[in-house]
């Protein structure tokens, strides 16, 4: 059970009244699921390629994802958002995707990274648009967070490209398949 010596932000100032709760709920739930999945993907990749030459690169990207996940954990508590039921599933699926792509080699892992990060950046851009349409002032903090994370994910995408992701055999097939999976995951996590 929770509630140890740490301060409990139960009635925190970070969660204001008058927000569009259903929209914010969805946004935070799906982003949390996404960062959780990304963490697991990198964990899978590290399990296979941890000791290779791209190990440090993947580790660094993973560390950034850990920071993202931590932030969304905080936002989730502050806005009292329910996490998606599918978390245990994303746990396994993410790891399998990461490990599977890494088994295709370093380029395969990078291709997976490129595909996922591109999906996530597009997704964050959509959310930024939604929030801007709603009320940029009211959601300033959230917008800032999402913009920052979107920039980080774009950086990961570029790192993937730099490391010869596009040279992977069957790159476009792999990329399309992974991005379809991401779209499905986003759709489900928003709702369930």
């Amino acid at each position, binding site marked *: 059970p929770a*509630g140890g010596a740490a301060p409990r932000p139960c009635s925190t100032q970070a969660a204001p009244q008058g927000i569009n709760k259903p929209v914010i709920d969805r946004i935070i739930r799906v982003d949390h699921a996404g960062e959780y999945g990304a963490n697991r993907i990198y964990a899978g990749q590290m399990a296979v390629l941890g000791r290779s030459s791209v190990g440090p690169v993947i580790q660094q990207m993973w560390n950034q994802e850990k920071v993202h996940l931590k932030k969304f*954990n905080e936002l989730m508590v502050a806005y009292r958002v*329910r*996490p998606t*039921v599918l978390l*245990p599933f994303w746990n396994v699926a993410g790891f399998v995707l990461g490990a599977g792509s890494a088994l295709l080699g370093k380029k395969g892992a990078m291709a997976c990274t490129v595909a996922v990060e591109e999906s996530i950046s597009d997704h964050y851009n959509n959310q930024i648009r939604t929030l801007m349409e709603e009320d940029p002032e009211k959601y300033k903090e959230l917008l800032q967070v999402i913009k920052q994370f979107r920039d980080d994910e774009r950086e990961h995408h570029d790192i993937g490209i730099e490391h010869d992701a596009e040279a992977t055999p069957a790159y476009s097939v792999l990329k399309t398949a992974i991005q379809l999976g991401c779209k499905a995951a986003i759709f489900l996590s928003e709702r369930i």
Partner: protein
Amino acid sequence: SVVRCQHYPPVRALQASAVLRRVSDEHKKEPFTPSSQQQFDTHPAGHQPEQEPPQGPRPSYTGQGGQESEDYESEEQLQRRILTAALEFVPEHGWTTEAIAEGAKTLGLSVAAAGMFHSDGSELILHFVSECNAKLSELLEKEQKLVQLGEAEKKPTDEFLRDAVEARLRMLIPYIEKWPQALSVLLLPRNIPSGLSLLTSMIDDIWHYAGDQSTDFNWYTRRAVLTGIYNTTELVMLQDSSPDFEDTWRFLENRVADAMNMSSTASQVQSTGEAVVQGLMGAAVTIRNLAGLNQRR
């Protein structure tokens, strides 16, 4: 803070005719103090004066849409006032149209006002549940403020859960005779979505104030467990004839203790399992070595 008070608006909204709605005359005279709200004014904390403009109906929930101008009352607000007034008559008449009619009478409205609602008392019951949940949230919010100000000790989780569930169930005591009827109405297919939604948000509220910060599957496990505890304790309470329901509170204490044990047992099982596996691996390696030694001879 994010205080989520969900209210259930009465479903059947017939256009109230002028006969039913002598509001602008009546509500100016009527102080709004339903009996069911009195029980909670003994709580010493929070010296905020109750906002009770005598000329307008008081919205019961935070986060509600803005109050209209003083002499206009929305249909929903009127219906809520009638239902709140009707609660006083539930112990005598049950969750029925009679109770609603009596309630309407005390507000100076015609008994035909009861025709706005379903005959099985669904809206009355859902309104009651929603009011109780709101009161519970207020209570927990006040307690939390006390703890934050350092005027009270933070309770351990099991005690917190016990107290919260007990506080919420005690709100049923004045209506306990008629509560089984209410439960069966809540199980009607028509009412299940709303009833379930009220239950889940109440349980979520309790865990929130208990300090739950889980963002993984535990979020669901904890709420499911607490829902089970709440429901079973409620059923026990209906059968309980001990003085001040002490058997019920003892049952509640045991269930909460079980739940706490369950979570530590789960982690114990896991670590025991891991230890067993390691033991087996060690034994296997030992046997292999022994066999190997044998072979080398």
